[in-house]
């Protein structure tokens, strides 16, 4: 028997080196993804590991690149809207607002006050929706499985509201150049108000589940810190930057839509670790539900879309009676409207940071270039520094807290 054990030990030693040798100093390159539930999309990470410590990291992207920016150059202006929605597939209203806002600035179209409020309302509902998807999936990465069900329960209420107003649960194509396509239906206001009242309570319940959870606290506190100056150099914006103590939000800094008339606060963190990132986003959900309620209270009467027939479709009822409306309708649907030559960079605050849309018009009815400065794409550059010299498990946590949407990264 002893002989056998000796032989077995010899074989093991031969296969894996000396048994008492310290094998943690060897650097090993490991591939994670592109298909992996913890990468929140199709992201591939090439990680250099020393034992369990991340020593270097390289994100490899482009797996869901679909050439949307190129396709946009072949579509008339109004047909671009559903294309750009599909870049960042969790915050579609924001892509629409960035693009429609840019085109409105190019043609010099003022949108009516009711459209401003409706847009603000849907943007903030979308912000809550996006943060709910983030919270559910990130908490799932950390082992808090029940959070996913609770977050998606509330998310479904938002999707129901989207469906009620627009007919679609995702990719709604609700914003038009000049306003929104339809007014909100009867009963929407009541449903939306009850949601806005419930949401802060629900957020309190999430916090009760996570904030006193020792596992969650130990996994997030003090992890993934990158200092504020470095984040600014890396172009990071949004909740990541605010968690590091920089109160920068385009809703306050460069007022657009109805934001200057609404009261809300910008939550800011202190150290900029993963816990602060979580706190900032959760607090933002509460602030957003306040904005939703205020929008409903202050919703002005009037038209929901501008009255400029050169850019906006005439109402359906007029088509049967007015020849001129029919001509406008035909022109808009076949050729689309022409936009005077010029270029615009329009930036708004998306749930992930600064979402910029650059549109170059050459005077024809199709844009010569549509470019999106996607916050996920830019923020991803900070991931290497967040994950450096931390455990693999903390790297997964940092990636979740970074909240990249790979559809937006790859476009």
């Amino acid at each position: 028997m002893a002989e056998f054990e000796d032989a077995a030990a010899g074989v093991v030693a031969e296969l894996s080196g000396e048994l008492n040798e310290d094998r943690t100093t060897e650097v090993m390159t490991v591939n994670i993804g592109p298909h992996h539930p913890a990468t929140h999309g199709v992201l591939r990470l090439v990680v250099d590991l020393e034992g369990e410590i991340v020593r270097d990291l390289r994100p490899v992207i482009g797996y869901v690149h679909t050439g949307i920016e190129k396709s946009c150059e072949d579509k008339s202006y109004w047909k671009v809207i559903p294309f750009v929605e599909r870049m960042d597939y969790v915050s579609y209203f924001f892509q629409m607002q960035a693009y429609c806002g840019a085109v409105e600035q190019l043609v010099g179209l003022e949108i009516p006050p009711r459209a401003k409020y409706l847009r603000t309302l849907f943007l903030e509902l979308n912000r809550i929706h996006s943060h709910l998807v983030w919270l559910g999936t990130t908490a799932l990465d950390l082992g808090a499985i029940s959070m996913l069900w609770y977050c998606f329960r509330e998310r479904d209420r938002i999707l129901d509201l989207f469906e009620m107003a627009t007919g679609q649960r995702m990719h709604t194509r609700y914003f038009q150049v000049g306003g929104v396509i339809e007014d909100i239906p009867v009963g929407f206001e009541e449903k939306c108000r009850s949601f806005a009242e419930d949401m802060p309570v629900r957020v309190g319940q999430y916090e009760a589940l996570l904030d006193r959870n020792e596992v969650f606290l130990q996994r997030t506190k003090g992890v993934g810190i990158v200092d504020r100056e470095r984040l600014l150099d890396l172009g990071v914006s949004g909740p990541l930057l605010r968690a590091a103590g920089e109160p920068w939000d385009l809703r306050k800094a460069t007022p657009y839509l109805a934001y200057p008339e609404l009261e809300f606060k910008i939550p800011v963190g202190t150290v900029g670790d993963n816990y602060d990132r979580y706190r900032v986003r959760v607090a933002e959900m509460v602030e957003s539900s306040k904005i939703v309620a205020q929008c409903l209270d202050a919703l002005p009467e009037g038209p929901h879309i501008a009255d400029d027939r050169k850019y906006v479709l005439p109402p359906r009822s007029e088509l049967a009676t007015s020849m001129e409306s029919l001509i406008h309708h035909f022109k808009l649907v076949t050729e689309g409207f022409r936009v005077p030559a010029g270029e615009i960079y329009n930036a708004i605050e998306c749930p992930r940071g600064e979402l910029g849309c650059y549109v170059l018009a050459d005077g024809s009815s199709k844009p010569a270039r549509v470019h999106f400065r996607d916050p996920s794409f830019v923020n991803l550059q900070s991931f290497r520094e967040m994950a450096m010299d931390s455990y693999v498990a903390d790297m997964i946590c940092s990636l979740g807290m970074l909240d990249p949407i790979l559809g937006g990264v790859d476009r």
Partner: protein
Amino acid sequence: MPDAPGLELIRGEIERDHPGAVRATSFDREQAALVVDPEQVLAVLTWLRETPGQGYRFLSSLHVADYLPAQPRFGVHYELLNRDRCERIRVKAMLSDPSAGGEGEGPRTDAPARPQDPPPRQDPRAELPSIDSCVELFPTAEFQEREAFDFFGIEFRGHPDMTRILLPEDYVGWPQRRDFPVGGEPVAFTYNERNYG
């Protein structure tokens, strides 16, 4: 945004430190832009970033637009942001296409090729328009310059890793250029043919 007179003041001050760096200014739809000499783009960006009273320290976006058929055709845009005053300014560097021949400013010699010479083995990048990389100044430009290289074939001199980022490494061509066809993959409808002749 600096207003139109403010933009001219900025131009005058840059002109004092870097003569000839700013070629033109434009103020269109409340957006201010400086069109600069591509050779001096780093000097202008550094000036806008470091000069007290300017402080455009945040590079929001770096992207390229193809102005074909205008010459020079490529515009590299730097969207700078001053977060204290919430002001944006766009710096534009116009690059011509060296491979276009004739109308461009490219270094193309007209010496006739001698037949006994082997065909010149050209580095495919020699024909690309190029500009200095601003990664040292704005680390955020790293991904965005790679994206510009990927889609427009503009080389950023001094970039640490000038490779394709979104497209596959072996992709041929620069798809966001205006003379690149939209195209697509042909769909072969073989099912009906096979089953129903």
